């Protein structure tokens, strides 16, 4: 849990993912389209991956991945990200972290 929280607050936009997860891939694409480069942690490639998975579930995520943190706060999984985006709330949250290119 500590590791997850540490990583989640280390950077502005953090995505916990699994390299084999296609839904995670979809979320990555979405961030790309919005001009944001999240810090991605592939927990299936992390030696403490199992622990991290459990920690993410305990934070309330039904599926451990994808899990999105913005500004250190848990936004949620694909559902929450999509809802937020369609409601117009995602871009304002991401604005401080959008690419300066």
């Amino acid at each position, binding site marked *: 849990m500590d590791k997850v929280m540490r990583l989640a607050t280390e950077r502005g936009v953090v995505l916990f993912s699994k390299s084999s997860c*296609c839904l995670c891939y*979809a979320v990555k694409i979405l961030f790309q389209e919005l001009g944001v480069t999240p810090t991605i942690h592939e927990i299936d490639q992390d030696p403490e991956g199992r622990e991290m998975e459990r920690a993410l579930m305990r934070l309330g995520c039904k599926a451990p991945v994808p899990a999105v943190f913005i500004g250190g706060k848990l936004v949620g999984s694909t*559902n929450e990200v999509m809802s937020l985006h369609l409601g117009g709330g995602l871009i304002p949250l991401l604005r401080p972290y959008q690419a300066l290119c």
Partner: protein
Amino acid sequence: MDFPSTQFVPSRIMGTYQPIHQIGMWGENFKSIGNPSISASVIVEVDNKLENESETASHEMPAPSCKHDQEASKPFDKIQRRLAQNREAARKSRLRKKAYVQQLESSRLKLMQLEKELEQAREQGLYIGGGLEAGHLGFSGAVSPGIAVFEMEYKHWMQVQNRQLGELRTALNAQISDIELRIVVENGMSHYFELFRMKSTVAKADVFYVMSGTWKTSAERFFSWIGGFRPSELLKVLVAQLDPLTDQQIFEVCNLKQSCQQAEDALSQGMEKLQETVSATLAAGQLGQGTYFPQVAMAMEKLEALVCFVNQADHLRQETLQQMSHILTTRQAARGLLALGEYIQRLQDLSTLWATHPREPA
């Protein structure tokens, strides 16, 4: 009092039960010619027809009673309609159960046949890897009960949908209050959300069924994207019908269109990735050796993600509808729902027309 015909029971109240009994028989007749999917509107029509017949016959009664009839007919219609609805619901329930049992029995026969074929194939050494369940191999034709239930529920859903569209049309033409109109709109929205729930349930039973859109008409399937309509397509159809919009609304709709498209693109690319992954997993190792169960099993694991995608796509559809209802006024939302509903009806009519129009012989 002198009654013209002994067929009709003296009391006016009792008289309605006669046409109802006849309708019951109608229902049975239709069932016996193997057409369980008779729509509710036909039953109601039959209802009205017989009701009119009994009323015209009653007018032969002495004049004073005629006037009484007209006043009494109002609560009368209500009782009759409610009785008809109850009967309808009971009939549908019986049909659902019958369909379920039929599906189970045909599945059982199919399964027995498959087991026999499997045994034969194994004996001939064509099949290595015993102990497989038929389900894993995805034989088409083995229908799960979940699908049978969904199909029955969808038929009912369509009937309610058509009824609601009629209500929307009436409500928009009448001078009803915004509050009442809001209720009609909310019903329409909830009805769509109900469909998404139904799809979510059957997706767990058989995600390929949802992906292929088997329960829909052919023209609807033509536009299918991950088991349903493209949200951006929905918006396109809706917005064209909604002039005039305020500047603020145009701004918000624009944003919604953009975010919807972005979300859609992300899911589409995710789906492509899933196809690549499953394909790569399935093709791993040497093709042509004859032993491949591990690859198939691994591909199956990857395929589980398809259920998530279908759910996400439906979630996107639902959110799109929700957001639109926030942006629009009640009246606009009502027009929007009507427009959407009728667009789907046109697609369905297109499918029917296509299926029935004469073609050049091959």
